[in-house]
């Protein structure tokens, strides 16, 4: 193999040349079209400049988005493997997809994380934003601290550290929980309650996923966790999704900042009026703040849902070495990765891609509709 750096530098230079040429061509042809239609000289110049400058995106859209999408639509009706002829199979890929228990499992995993994890993530973001919106010194520093995981959290390096911390036997998280439980007994009760609730919910859900509730019976018959029980983070299918949810809560910084901006937009006068009416803190929050920031909550909800369907780095790094528990934490995109790039099922992968695309478009469309509704009563 030739020097990979030079190879890419050459290609980058060729790409720049390609972009310049296509930009000039598209600008010139736009000018030509306007000229034929009898546009003024000025309009011709504007068309030339506009298409000249916009061409990089337009060309990129054609090459890297539109053509791949059309091809993948075609491939989703074929059996496709690299370096092999394409074989038409009709709807088989889609039928397989809907009959595929693993895909269903992965999809339900994403659903579980959405239903349980997303409210927790949004709740954490809202609480932090409420706390940080107090007019006190040093809030800026805290804001930076809570935002840090957004920048670092997706990197495999940091996720590996979570893997180390989450070791169920002697990881630091376990040791801290045990230590705190010994010093402070109510904490131990809290810990056990948390374990119990988590395992009940997870077991019920795993039962729902597999159609067999033995695992739930096990948890129930084991009763309230003993004092020395610890969470099993990455070891047990009852805990893998919980670990991912904790990572989500940890990196709620984006949502928090967004809420902060929302809170900033709430006019001071309304609070004063509410206070005059004798509303207490909770009433002020529930009757004034919450309704005014619901649009932002909706937005966080939608963006969060899409992010959870696309979850890849976290399950990959935490579970690629423990394939026997990986299944319980697989997201749709992780499933897509395994099926397509390990087994070379490109046709099937195309079908999954289109399914993914449609689901996310559906969610996004809802977002746009909701947004249209609230943009009108934007406060200023």
């Amino acid at each position, binding site marked *: 193999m030739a020097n*990979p*750096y030079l190879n*890419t530098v050459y290609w*980058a230079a060729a790409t*720049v040349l390609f972009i310049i040429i296509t930009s000039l061509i598209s600008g010139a042809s*736009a000018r030509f079209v*306007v000229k034929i239609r009898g546009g003024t000289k000025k309009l011709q110049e*504007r068309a030339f*400049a*506009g298409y000249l*400058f*916009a061409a*990089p*995106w337009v*060309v990129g*859209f054609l090459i*890297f988005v539109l053509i*791949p*999408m059309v091809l*993948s639509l075609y*491939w989703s009706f074929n059996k496709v493997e690299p370096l092999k002829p394409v074989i038409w199979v009709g709807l088989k890929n889609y039928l397989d997809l809907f009959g595929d228990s693993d895909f269903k499992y992965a999809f339900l995993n994403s659903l579980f994380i959405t239903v349980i994890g997303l409210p927790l993530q949004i709740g954490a973001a809202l609480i*932090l934003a409420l*706390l940080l*919106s*107090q007019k*006190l010194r040093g*809030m800026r520093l805290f804001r*930076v601290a809570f*935002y840090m995981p957004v*920048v*670092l959290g*997706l*990197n*495999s*390096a*940091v996720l*590996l*550290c979570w*893997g*180390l*911390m989450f070791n169920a036997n002697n990881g630091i998280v376990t*040791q801290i929980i045990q230590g705190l439980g010994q010093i402070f007994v109510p904490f131990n009760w809290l810990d056990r309650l948390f374990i119990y609730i988590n395992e009940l919910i997870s077991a019920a859900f795993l039962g729902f996923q597999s159609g067999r509730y033995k695992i739930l019976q096990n948890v129930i018959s084991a009763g309230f966790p003993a004092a020395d029980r610890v969470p099993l983070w990455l070891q047990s299918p009852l805990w893998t999704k919980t670990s991912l949810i904790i990572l989500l809560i*940890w990196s709620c910084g984006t949502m928090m900042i967004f809420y902060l901006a929302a*809170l900033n937009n709430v006019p001071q006068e309304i*609070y004063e009026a509410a*206070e005059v009416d004798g509303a207490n*803190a909770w009433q002020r929050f529930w009757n004034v703040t919450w309704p005014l920031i619901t649009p932002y909550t909706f937005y966080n909800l939608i963006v969060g849902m899409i992010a959870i*369907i696309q979850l*890849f*780095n976290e399950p*990959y*790094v935490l579970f690629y070495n423990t394939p026997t528990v990986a299944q319980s934490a697989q997201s749709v*995109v992780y499933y*897509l990765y395994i099926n*397509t790039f390990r087994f070379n099922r*490109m046709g099937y992968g195309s079908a999954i*891609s289109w399914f*993914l695309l449609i689901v996310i478009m559906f969610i996004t469309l809802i977002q*746009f509709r909701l947004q249209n509704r609230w943009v009108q009563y*934007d406060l200023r």
Partner: protein
Amino acid sequence: MSALRRPTDHGIVPLIIRERKGFKLFPFLWKILLYLVLLVGAAITLFPLFWMISTSFKTEAESNASRIIWLPHQVQLDAYKAILANKDFLIAYANSIFVTIIALLGTVITIALVAYAFSRIEWPGRNLVFFLMLSTMMIPTQSLAVPQYMIFLKFKWVGTFNPIVIPGFFAGGAAMIFLLRQFMAQIPKELDEAALMDGATHLQIWYYVIMPLCRPAIATISAILFVGIWNSLLYPLIFLTSTKLYTLPIFVTTLYNPQMPSQPWPTIMSASVLTALPLLIIFFFAQRYLIESIVLTGSKG
């Protein structure tokens, strides 16, 4: 653009508790409690970072001890020596830097060009193209991975850096174009009109008038793109089929070898610290821009 305002520049509305006249103890206690909660929260949030750094200076036995060792008994530099002597790590580091810089340059420049077209020039079909661009934000990038893989396979690009780097050259990232467009649209129109009168071309206006005014916005999108490219895992996993091309996020995962009875955690964590270092530096300089940009992108539509 009400959301453009920075939360810190304005008095923030106290939302739940407001100072009551004549009763001074309560706000004081409240303040203490608030700080306490925030301190604990921040400690938990930053803990993985601390643990990563701390572990990287430990011995292997300390990193896997059965009791808590907050800080290494004696600071060990062996892990750093080992990782810096690892040729593959250095190659991965160079790969990451190379990929990030080339992709960043190409992406930022073309995004600036396209944002200029969308904000400073009125051309027939602009609204249509702009709407098209906004609608591509709906397309999850992962759903394009499969067809792109097949296409790049035909190009013989799989197994090179090109699939990671080149697509960015076509103004990759609709959200970033949007962000910059919003910023550019705020610049008074009179500026370029005057320049046009003087006979300047659009390219000159873009370079000499608009770009200097857009520096904060450019810094913002550069920081966002940097973080995105530096952290990306899926595309490198798919396209960088040779271990010599691995970028850092893939490389660090290979340090954990499940076949071995014990894992060299200090070495893994020292690699992690070095991997996270550029992120920390970027974060240190650009956190304000990063945080602002969320407010900007959040208020789109």
